[in-house]
């Protein structure tokens, strides 16, 4: 479904990703784990069209999307749930969700999608008419995920969904990710929380200093010596 071929990318003169190749099959939950600064977010931003790779190609369902503008990538069905939620603070939860369904493929069915999404997030449905800025961090993360699902994405990308949240909320967030995956969506998730993420994923890539150091099934990575030493502290 998604293929990255030898991607080099960065900001200005700084190259962060060196020759990153990876792929995500339809229906999979794939994770990219790694330390802070390893290039996880940069990878997602390159896929999302927010930065342009200096070399390499990105294919989505057979189409080369390397040079597409960010809003065109969204239109194809790739939605990113950004780090730090990035809600529209002075809008109601309802307006935030409606904006999630802005892309052309989601607009016509937005009311059905809303019913479906609110079913998944009963907590969000209680907050529909509140301003997004008045919610707690955990609630904001739920709204951010719900907003992402409003786009009816073919590929849903999560950027550090657990960042800055209390452990109990992190658990809830990953429960939701599992629900999302169970609904048939393809998921690419980037995390520093290696253990929990690998437990919810099918396959994983370990990114170190902008290069893919390891790739395997999530199960195999959980028992891999290097992963256990470097990321799980075992």
């Amino acid at each position, binding site marked *: 479904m998604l293929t990255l071929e030898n991607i080099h990318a960065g900001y200005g003169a700084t190259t962060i990703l060196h020759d990153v190749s990876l792929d995500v099959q339809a229906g999979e939950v794939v994770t990219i784990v790694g330390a802070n600064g390893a290039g996880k977010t940069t990878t997602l931003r390159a896929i999302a069209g927010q930065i342009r790779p200096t070399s390499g190609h990105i294919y989505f369902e057979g189409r080369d999307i390397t040079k597409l503008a960010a809003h065109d990538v969204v239109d194809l069905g790739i939605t990113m749930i950004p780090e730090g939620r990035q809600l529209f603070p002075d809008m109601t939860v309802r307006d935030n969700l409606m*904006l999630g369904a802005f892309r052309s493929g989601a607009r016509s069915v937005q009311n059905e999608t809303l019913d479906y999404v609110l079913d998944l997030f009963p907590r969000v449905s209680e907050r529909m008419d509140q301003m997004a800025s008045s919610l707690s961090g955990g609630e904001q993360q739920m709204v951010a995920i719900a907003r992402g699902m409003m786009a009816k994405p073919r590929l849903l990308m999560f950027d550090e969904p657990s960042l800055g949240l209390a452990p109990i909320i992190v658990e809830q967030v990953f429960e939701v990710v599992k629900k999302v995956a169970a609904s048939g969506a393809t998921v690419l998730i980037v995390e520093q929380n290696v253990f929990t993420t690998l437990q919810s994923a099918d396959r994983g890539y370990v990114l170190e200093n902008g290069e893919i150091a390891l790739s395997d099934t999530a199960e195999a990575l959980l028992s891999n010596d290097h992963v256990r030493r470097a990321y799980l502290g075992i």
Partner: protein
Amino acid sequence: MLETFLQVVVNGLMLGGLFAIISIGLTTIFGIIKVVNFAHGEFLMAGMFLTWLFTTKLGLHPYAAVVVVAPVLFVLGGLTQKLLIQPLMNARDEHIQIFATVGLSTAMINLALLIYGADIANTPAYGLRTPLEFGPIRVLEGQLFILGAAILLVIGMELFLRRSRTGLAIRAVAQNRTAAQLMGINVNWIYVLSFGLGAACVGIASVLVAPLYPTSSNIGTYFVLIAFVVVILGGWGSIPGAFVGAMVIGLIDSLSGFYIGADLREAVVFGVFLVILILRPSGLFGTKQKLSHIS
């Protein structure tokens, strides 16, 4: 006594209508794009010249010019964003945008001088400068239209921004540009559209102001200062705020001009303006500009 007072208040409200109509475009553009358009006055000047041209060459009522002036200004605004502001949006120093619009302002004034010269162009009034009498109170017909148009424009813009899908996208871009992009909104297009929309508001103002005030190359500088005062007082980016700010300034202007002295009018207006700003630095309806972060 009471009649005089009423007349002075009505004059203030009419003046407020004028200040409001010339300020809506400025606050709209800032509220969405966060760019202060220092060429705002010159957009008004261009619109007024176009109105004059339309009225004198075609012999039509100046208000009819709106069908030409508003679209032309929309395009002018859109091009300003596309060709001048957008290339500078990622500049390291945001102040570059200020210099760009100041430069545009100077260029437009000189272009007007080049094309038309330093003379005054009088747009035919078609009776709009005729006083109407309501009992003891007198107002110019054109002033009433300006106040009415200002009210309609404020309501219309608010409805558009709050109720339409495009309006929702515009507010999304204004509140969090990165997130808006993640929703699949073409942020650059929204900026072009919004600058065009703000400029079109100036176009509407132009056809209303032209029959009452003589048009010249420097008419923009005459009006722009008060537009800035109104927008700052109302709270940058707030359209209803600009309307209320305009009414406050209009009333202070009129009352102080009559009861304190015509030559102290401006001193009082700016004095009160400064006091309000000291008490409420973000303006009457302003919120602190939260640019793009929430957590």
